[in-house]
């Protein structure tokens, strides 16, 4: 199933056969481009960027590399190939054929799911739009732009579903996706984490490590959906999302690597001294981990949620790796442990499994996040340095759900407001941490050069040599 690039909107959904839909999307396209000019990567429209473009959704076809000016990037609509006779794998409709159209009774919920997912995509582009001005290398600049154009494509993926399946409501929602602005007091993005600033590259790497991983788990849950077009769209998005997490994990790893090199050379672990040497001390990196992990953990929603139960029972949103779960895929009589503060301590208690699905996805996410933290620790161990990062407890610094606002330490101890006051500057980035990291942000764009605070990558994009000119400036 190749993608037709001759059409105004590249697609593999035979858009030309549905003239009304095609016209509606062709009407939305210039609005999208105008949004990209206003809110996309700042000052970048004339750059030739070595980008990956999908030329088909087959494994061999979706990693085609070439130089592209970003406004000319072929954003389009790509669905994974349909699985023949696919059947609903969970919930009340288990065993029935998947839906190609939206059942009337689920319209509102599906629209809400798609809009919430779709809103995060342009939001992250907005959050990251100034980062290009302080890229630590050409390699990183290119990776940032790749992430940005793919978030743009993910927006297209959701807008296609809205236009194709939700009529006038869908078109209005698609317009609104271009009108909300990250961090705007009057018209903010839907989810809190997507209104936070991404002021520096360490934040960007943390964001792509943690927050794009939330994206992975949300998309994976939607890829199980009984609504087949949503499942097929999100499957393909997942393959792109992988690159974003790679940027995050390897970016943090390279930052740690560089710090450890300097620590070993200078035989010091004194943060002040390391800062004078121009690298980011490990405790500061830990505080960034704590912040981004906790903000992302909130994205999974309330621990006990009747919406989550409804979405599951009605087949709209499954669990992570639904098909690998050995249970009845109904969950009606099952329970799942959720956290609550009881007698001054965090305690687990049983909640109906259906209502605890957000919590379950959050736990899956925590497990996945921990694996990367372990690997960061191995970099430190290799240098023989006695320090290790931890992932903060999932109850730490929560703003959503029953744990919101409680004072809980990164290790999961319930503490007093006074204790929090005394310790939180060691747990979360302080103004001075952020100012210091900001002070390191200087643009480095000579081939083969990297900012002092970050190590070069182990392999180039598409195995290009270190000297490769990933971005050509006009």
């Amino acid at each position, binding site marked *: 199933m190749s993608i037709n690039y001759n059409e105004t909107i590249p697609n593999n959904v035979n858009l030309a056969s549905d003239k009304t839909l095609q016209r509606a999307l062709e009407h939305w396209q210039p609005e999208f481009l105008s949004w990209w000019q206003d809110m996309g990567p700042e000052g970048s429209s004339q750059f030739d960027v070595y980008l990956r473009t999908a030329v088909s959704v087959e494994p061999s076809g979706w*990693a085609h590399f070439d130089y592209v000016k970003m406004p000319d990037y072929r954003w389009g609509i790509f669905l994974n190939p349909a699985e023949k006779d696919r059947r609903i794998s969970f919930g009340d409709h288990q065993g029935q054929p998947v839906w190609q159209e939206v059942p009337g009774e689920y319209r509102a919920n599906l629209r809400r799911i798609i809009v919430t997912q779709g809103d995060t995509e342009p939001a992250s582009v907005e959050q990251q739009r100034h980062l290009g001005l302080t890229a630590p290398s050409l390699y990183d600049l290119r990776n940032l732009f790749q992430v940005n154009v793919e978030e743009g494509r993910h927006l297209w993926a959701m807008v296609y579903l809205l236009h194709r399946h939700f009529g006038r409501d869908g078109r209005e929602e698609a317009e609104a996706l271009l009108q909300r602005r990250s961090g705007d007091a009057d018209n903010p993005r839907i989810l809190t984490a997507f209104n936070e600033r991404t002021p520096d590259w360490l934040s960007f790497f943390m964001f792509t490590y943690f927050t794009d991983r939330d994206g992975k788990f949300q998309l994976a849950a939607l890829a199980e959906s009984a609504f087949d077009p949503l499942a097929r769209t999100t499957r393909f998005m997942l*393959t792109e999302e*992988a690159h974003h997490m790679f940027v995050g*994990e390897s970016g943090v790893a390279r930052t740690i690597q560089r710090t450890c090199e300097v620590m070993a050379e200078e035989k010091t672990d004194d943060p002040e001294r390391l800062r004078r040497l121009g690298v980011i001390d490990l405790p500061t990196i830990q505080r960034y981990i704590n912040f981004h992990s906790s903000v992302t953990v909130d994205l999974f929603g309330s621990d006990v949620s009747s919406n989550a139960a409804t979405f599951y029972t009605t087949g709209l949103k499954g669990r992570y790796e639904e098909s690998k779960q050995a249970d009845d895929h109904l969950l009606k009589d099952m329970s799942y442990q959720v956290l609550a503060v009881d007698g001054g301590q965090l305690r687990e208690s049983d909640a109906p499994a259906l209502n605890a699905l957000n919590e379950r996805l959050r736990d899956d996410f925590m497990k996945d996040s*921990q694996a990367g933290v372990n690997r960061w620790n191995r970099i430190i161990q290799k240098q023989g340095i006695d320090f290790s990062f931890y992932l903060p407890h999932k109850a730490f610094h929560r703003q959503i759900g029953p744990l919101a606002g409680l004072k809980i330490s990164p290790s999961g101890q319930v503490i007093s407001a006074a204790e929090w006051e005394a310790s939180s500057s060691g747990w979360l980035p302080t103004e001075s941490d952020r100012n210091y990291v900001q002070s390191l942000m200087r643009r480095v764009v000579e081939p083969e050069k990297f900012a002092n605070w970050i190590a070069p990558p*182990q*392999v180039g994009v598409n195995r290009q040599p270190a000297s490769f000119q990933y971005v050509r400036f006009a």
Partner: protein
Amino acid sequence: MAVAEDRVARQHLIDPEICIRCNTCEATCPVGAVTHDDRNYVVRFDLCNACGACISPCPTGAIDNWRQVLKSKAYSVEEQLTWDSLPAQVPLETELASDIPEEVTRLTALASEGLGGNSSAPWSAGKPQVNLFGLSQPAVATVSGNLRLTSEGAENDIRHIVLDLGDTVFPVLEGQTVGVLPPGTDSHGRAHRVRLYSIASPRNGERPNYNNISLTVKRVTVDHDGHAVAGAGSNYMCDLKVGDEVRLVGPYGENFLMPNHVGSSILMICTGTGSAPMRAMTEWRRRNSSANEGGRLMLFFGARTPEELPYFGPLARLPKEFIDVNLAFSRVPGKPKQHVQDLIRQRADRVVDLLVDEDAYVFVCGLKDMEQGVDDALRDICRDQGRDWASMRPRMLEQNRLHVETY
């Protein structure tokens, strides 16, 4: 059948140091060979059929790792799940008790001594597998084609021989050689020495994605001094019929390998059957053009007459923008003698361009006689452009950009 083919396999592994556990490979794998735990993503040896579907979607490159293993000792899923880094390639020679024939070592040293030394492989070359099959356990291939390349009237009989390896794992790269063990004994009653031939086909087979290789073999009828002699190896090879079995050792060669990085150019200078590795490299570039490896290709190829030039027909059909072909003929009636060095002089500008381009690699292959002439021509054209070949040559060797194989 040889024992080794039942014992050796190429195992697909994922580098846990680079993998970010994004799950793309597992989602992509059409046969469900990829699995994971909280720590690592790993490949099931018994299920992976090396189809490559997971390779390009991997955002990190962690997926593209392979180890030559004994099937009985393939890394299990459980073992892979404990890794923090990939194990080194265990030399199979020790396990297979295979042996590099002395003759191979001697010939290889002799072949690469020209032009002042031996370069290592280009940095971007594929990683060669060597010496998988030794004298004690040769691989057995079946002849699937034997085509005369020179026209019937021509004095030289040069043949294109295609060998099918069935299900034997015999991975090769362009520029590598194989050894052939002719059956029977020589006049002293000893087994025939191993004969070395350059492989003329690219890494993915004479026919793409078939497990076969091709060799370019010239029937030897006179020795170096011009005395009539029937070469035991070449006559055996040239007389092979479709269906015959041939015993192979190797593959050999770790240095005479083509660069694979984007923008890498190749300057090829050859005579006669020295064209075999050049054909392999050219064909790989042609098949793989979507990978954007090239770089320019420039070929100087000498023979006595067009009728005696192996692969003359297919060469003439390659588009000019793909490869810059320069053919020299030394014995065309009524025309002055022309050698590759004469054409190198005529194309001096272009050749010097390539000599100074750090992404361009030079390969020379053919009879020993050609070496001095080529060296002189390169010296002269450099001098004409104010450059000093005597200092450029060692520098190129050091950069692994100059590769010579002559015999």
